């Protein structure tokens, strides 16, 4: 039924467009599905809840639209129908995923060759094939495990931001998790909420619904109703309503909703790749490309050197295995999830991993003011009525101001009535200021203020029953409601309005002074402006209040108000007073703003508030620094017209939405580049979007923070949208990439730091991983060219890549930031690549080569001390590898059987492996920093590094002494002294890198810096 009606509904407002789209969508989903499923869907179309009257509905669902369901009923229904949540789509079976793992193809080719080769050669090749296959399976399992784990993390994230629904149960408004909604619940929806289930509207006020998730149409469809009883359009779960309020009855939950049904038809949707993943994949492709080209080059060389083709293919595989960092993908996955976890601990909930990295490269932050820079804990600070400013300090004795004035009586009534906020039930014993309120910040402040001064607000509201209401929205900038009066003799309706003072004043023709209405003349308007500027200048949010008693003759008791057509006057009201609230800046923000500055990040404030308010807050948090002036400030100081001020002198600018409206994109660009400190005030959601686009035109990576529904377009548009976890609406959270759980701007700075850190540390990890590739590759090249017995086997290489090197490279993710991390400019998306030329060159041609030499020393030592001096090894390969040669003479005239040589060769492998491992320890230590000395960084600050080093040594010990007898692994027990042969080279690596870093620090900008800093 809701399916059918939902479609019809969209059809009604979108003139059939939505219907077609929906049909198209449905057809698409159904294309591959079996026919009977279609039938099932069609069957449901027969039910037509929207045709039923409310009474019939109540009967059908056993509910009551005023009192709602009882808790027991709800629990019963919940148990019967299950939670109101979508069943997640089925995961692709893991077996299917394994062959997708990288390198699989390589392995199967290798395996095939091995099998082909097996017929004539020893078992070694089979072992290699098996190990390669094992590697692929293991990486597959690991990748699957990580994916499952991160899916779990994401799932827990989405649990941590549960969707809430305001529901009437047991005659009380309750906030319950949307999952617990049951059929028959009466829910209230306000602007920005996601519709929690399929609901049938009971009443609505200026409510629009965005059915984009259903129709793909992004224009919210306006739903108008003359009579609440005729509100017959069921709304669909997942739709968002950006504006207005509505009440509705849940008619379907969970998988039985329209979205649920579509979702169950749609199989898993592919994940998008994060930029960091793209970067890494790109890098792996480059490495693989290099590996394959070196491999093929040497294949050709080998063939032309008259090696057997089959042998040459084995060389090729060896070279490729040596070059491909098998363990890197696993390492990176772990590193990223570690950072995501670490950020979650610091209250930055990352919705997609992309955001971690993007935040690090952010160059402009467009911050919302309320809630992010300030505490979002509005308290009423001042009142202005009877041409006087009163201080309202709700925390102390509240009788400071004169409450006897008639104006105050009217004002207090407006404050009380024109307010949608309510205390959450069940907090009678809680002090007023600490009570939890359902409502936004300023309404909460007003509610608490009036509760403190007037007593039971709910009782007053009950006595003045509300008959109609226009909720606040950013377009109107006012809120209006119409009430019956509590005076039984007064049959007039009282219309109360609050909103942006200038908007409210526009609608007024009279002003109340000392309880008497007076015409609004220039002098009173002047007084209003003075007071407004004074309060606003203090950085306070000022609200104007006015009212109008609607004449009883025109608006009889039975008059039906319609907020969509506005069949009542909204002008010529009586202005009553101003009230200002302060939202104090968060104590951590000024520091965070300074940090952003020094990190090269421009902080722009974008707010809907008055310019003066905005400027005051901007100054107090340091977005406009203490010594910078705007053009207006300079003009005022020098007492000259604004036009005469040189724009160059001003660092700061406060731009209002009005000014922005008249600006061309070029002018905006100019504005954004010319001023380092910018505040946008009185901006509309569209303008926020324009600002973000303007920033992006400057090639900046823009982060946008926001909490309201009006922010969500900008959040979507931004490179990284940051929503507030506490104050944020669902719409904002959905649009954002990251959620700040504590709503604190300072958390962004930690996020930026983490983002930069992860990038730096990934660089270090990759540099570390790449280095040994040369040490693994050189043996093959030397083997082919100089004919030495093979210094290191393919299986041994895999043990380095996937054994000893894994934990150390993960350990680098725990490395603390080098001191300058927040003092440098943000990374340029395209210029500062993860893997740049200096990194590759330094890793390959400097440290890598040193490592190779060091490992060769160990290798030669083992051979020389066992009888084969280096000179004897050259071009020994052919004889060495012949199975039939069992009396090969060494440098001392001794003769060796094939197995004895093979065993020595394995000892050589182990020696080379140990040589690389020892030098990788040095490599790990030098990779801790890229610029600073290790001693500046502290050798022992990162304990995990030492865990990594210990793991390296332990794994090597186990391989050599524990598994030395397993011939398939090609390890042997190594004499203890061989473990120390590479130590001088390891120390050399360390010293060399210290020298490199020293010169980088001494000569920034020199060719050394340019070529050696990665």
């Amino acid at each position, binding site marked *: 039924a809701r399916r059918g009606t939902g479609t019809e509904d969209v059809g009604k407002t979108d003139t059939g467009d939505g219907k077609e789209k929906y049909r198209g969508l449905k057809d698409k989903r159904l294309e591959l599905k079996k026919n009977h499923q279609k039938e099932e869907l069609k069957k449901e179309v027969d039910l037509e809840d929207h045709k039923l009257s409310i009474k019939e509905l109540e009967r059908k669902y056993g509910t009551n639209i005023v009192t709602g369901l009882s808790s027991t009923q709800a629990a019963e229904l919940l148990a019967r129908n299950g939670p109101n949540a979508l069943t997640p789509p089925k995961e692709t079976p893991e077996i299917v995923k394994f062959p997708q793992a990288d390198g699989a193809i390589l392995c199967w080719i290798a395996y095939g060759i091995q099998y082909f080769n097996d017929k004539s050669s020893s078992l070694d090749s089979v072992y290699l094939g098996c190990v390669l296959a094992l590697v692929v399976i293991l990486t597959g399992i690991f990748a699957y495990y990580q994916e499952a784990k991160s899916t779990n993390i994401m799932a827990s994230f989405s649990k941590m931001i549960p969707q809430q629904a305001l529901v009437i149960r047991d005659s009380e408004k309750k906030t319950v998790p949307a999952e617990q909604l049951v059929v028959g619940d009466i829910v209230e929806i306000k602007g920005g909420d996601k519709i929690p289930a399929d609901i049938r509207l009971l009443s609505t006020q200026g409510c629009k619904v965005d059915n984009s998730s259903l129709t793909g149409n992004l224009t919210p469809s306006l739903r108008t109703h003359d009579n609440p009883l005729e509100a017959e359009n069921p709304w669909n779960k997942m739709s968002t309503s950006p504006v207005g309020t509505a009440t509705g009855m849940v008619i379907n939950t969970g998988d039985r909703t329209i979205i649920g049904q579509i979702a169950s038809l749609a199989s898993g949707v592919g994940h998008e790749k994060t930029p960091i993943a793209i970067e890494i994949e790109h890098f792996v492709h480059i490495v693989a490309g290099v590996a394959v080209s070196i491999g093929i080059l040497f294949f050709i060389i080998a063939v032309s050197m008259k090696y057997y083709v089959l042998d040459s293919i084995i060389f090729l595989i060896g070279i490729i295995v040596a070059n491909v960092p098998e363990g890197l993908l696993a390492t990176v996955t772990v590193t990223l999830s570690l950072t995501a976890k670490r950020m979650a601990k610091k209250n930055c909930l990352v919705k997609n991993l992309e955001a971690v990295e993007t935040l690090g490269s952010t160059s402009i932050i467009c911050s919302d003011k309320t809630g992010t820079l300030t505490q979002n804990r509005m308290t009423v600070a001042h009142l202005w009525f009877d041409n006087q400013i009163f201080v309202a300090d709700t925390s102390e004795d509240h009788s400071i101001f004169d409450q006897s004035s008639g104006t105050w009586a009217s004002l207090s009534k407006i404050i009380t009535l024109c307010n949608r906020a309510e205390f959450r039930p069940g907090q009678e014993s809680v002090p007023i200021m600490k009570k939890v309120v359902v409502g936004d910040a300023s309404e909460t402040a007003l509610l608490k203020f009036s509760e403190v001064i007037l007593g039971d607000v709910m009782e007053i509201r009950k006595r003045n029953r509300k008959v109609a209401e226009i909720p606040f929205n950013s377009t109107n900038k006012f809120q209006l409601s119409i009430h019956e009066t509590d005076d039984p003799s007064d049959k007039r309706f009282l219309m109360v309005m609050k909103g942006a003072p200038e908007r409210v004043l526009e609608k007024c023709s009279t002003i109340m002074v000392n309880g008497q209405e007076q015409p609004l003349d220039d002098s009173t308007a002047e007084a209003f402006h003075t007071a407004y500027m004074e309060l606003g200048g203090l950085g306070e949010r000022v609200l104007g209040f006015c009212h109008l008693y609607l004449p009883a003759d025109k608006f009889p008791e039975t008059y039906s108000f319609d907020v969509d057509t506005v069949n009542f006057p909204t002008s010529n009201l009586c202005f009553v007073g101003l009230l200002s609230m302060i939202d104090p800046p968060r104590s951590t923000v000024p520091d965070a703003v300074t940090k952003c500055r020094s990190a090269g990040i421009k902080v722009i404030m974008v707010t809907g508030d008055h310019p003066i308010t905005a400027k005051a807050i901007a100054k107090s948090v340091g977005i406009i620094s203490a010594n910078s002036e705007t053009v207006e400030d300079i003009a005022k100081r020098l007492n000259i017209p604004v036009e005469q001020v040189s724009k160059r002198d001003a660092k700061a600018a406060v731009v209002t939405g009005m000014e922005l409206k008249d600006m061309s994109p070029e002018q905006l660009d100019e504005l954004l580049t010319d001023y380092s400190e910018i505040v946008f005030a009185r901006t509309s959601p569209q303008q926020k979007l324009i600002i973000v686009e303007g920033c992006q035109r400057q090639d900046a990576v823009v982060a946008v923070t926001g909490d309201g529904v009006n922010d969500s377009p900008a959040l979507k548009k931004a490179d990284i949208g940051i929503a507030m976890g506490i104050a944020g609406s669902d719409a904002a959270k959905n649009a954002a990439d990251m959620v700040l759980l504590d709503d604190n701007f300072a958390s962004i700075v930690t996020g930026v730091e983490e983002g930069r850190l992860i990038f730096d540390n990934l660089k270090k990890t990759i540099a570390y991983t790449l280095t040994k590739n040369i040490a693994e590759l050189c043996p093959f090249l030397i083997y082919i060219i100089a004919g030495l017995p093979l210094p290191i086997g393919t299986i041994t290489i895999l043990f380095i890549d996937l054994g000893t090197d894994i934990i150390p490279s993960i350990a680098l993710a725990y490395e603390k930031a080098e001191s300058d991390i927040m003092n440098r400019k943000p990374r340029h998306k395209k210029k500062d690549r993860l893997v740049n030329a200096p990194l590759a060159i330094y890793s390959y041609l400097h440290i890598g080569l040193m490592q190779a*030499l060091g490992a060769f020393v160990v290798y030669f*030592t083992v051979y*020389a001390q066992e009888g084969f001096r280096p000179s004897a090894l050259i071009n020994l390969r052919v004889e060495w590898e012949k199975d039939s040669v069992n009396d090969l003479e060494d440098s001392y005239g001794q003769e060796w059987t094939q*197995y004895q040589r093979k065993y020595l060769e394995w000892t050589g492998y182990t020696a080379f492996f140990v040589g690389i491992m020892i030098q990788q320890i040095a490599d790990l230590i030098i990779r801790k920093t890229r610029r600073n000395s290790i001693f500046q960084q502290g050798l022992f600050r990162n304990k995990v590094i030492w865990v990594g080093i210990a793991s390296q040594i332990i794994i090597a010990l186990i391989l050599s002494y524990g598994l030395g007898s397993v011939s398939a692994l090609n390890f042997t027990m190594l004499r203890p002294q061989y473990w120390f042969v590479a130590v001088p080279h390891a120390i050399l690596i360390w010293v060399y890198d210290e020298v490199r870093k020293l010169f980088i620090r001494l*000569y*920034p900008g020199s060719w050394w810096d340019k070529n050696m800093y990665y």
Partner: protein
Amino acid sequence: MQRLGPSLWTWDSSWQQAPATSLPLGVQKILLGSAFTSKIKVVLNQGPKKEILVLLPLGVSSLLNLWVQLQGCLFLGTFPAFILLFYLVFYGFLTAMFTLTMWVMLQTVSDHTPKYQDRLATPGLMIRPKTENLDVIVNVSDTESWDQHVQKLNKFLEPYNDSIQAQKNDVCRPGRYYEQPDNGVLNYPKRACQFNRTQLGDCSGIGDPTHYGYSTGQPCVFIKMNRVINFYAGANQSMNVTCVGKRDEDAENLGSFVMFPANGNIDLMYFPYYGKKFHVNYTQPLVAVKFLNVTPNVEVNVECRINAANIATDDERDKFAGRVAFKLRINKT
């Protein structure tokens, strides 16, 4: 100095007496000065805190200035030439370092005896003629097929000629090791015992028209034991080589054979071996096996092993430890 320009080098007025220089390079800063107070101060600033404070005696200042100048030229120089120079120096240095460590390593290795013989506990056995797959295939009618074996054997046995042996080596007492200990002084070169070609009897190939029996289908195969330095084969007991067919049918097909020296004996006097450098004229003892009536046109798997007290011949992995397996095939039409 000149090329660095005034923007990098400025006189600091507070160091009037002591010529001081300050290098405002980005965040970092170096202050160098040589004071008449016989000390110079090097202040390395990084960020807000001072990292290093070095006080050096006066004499170093000029050196340091030179170094700073040199560094300045090196590190602020133009790009490609310096890169080339750098890599030249760098790789030169690496080569030197590698050579040095290799040299140091080779100092640990003696010229005469290997440092370790971990893998050589059991000497292997090997046959002559040496063939690609350890198979001795003789087509009696086809001279070409065995001529290469004969050539190899002629060459192999040449040092065993009695004349050469008599000229170079000693006649030793059989049945005991011929030990020549150094006793503190290098006893060099060491003498070796004679192994005369004539000891190989019918397989000596001297004046042999049958070419070690290859032309008649009764080939000689020579068994030798691998040389291992300081290995006392047999542990003071006599040892000999025996050959059998690997499987029952091989034994049948193998037929009879004779061994030279008789019984396949290897005398203790040829041990120990002192290495190529010491034991210059060492002659390896041989055992020749002449197969008299191998079933023709059948591949026969022969295995010969040494029976010695201290040589294990049952190593699972090393198929040539103390033994040798080869294929024998006599093709007759």
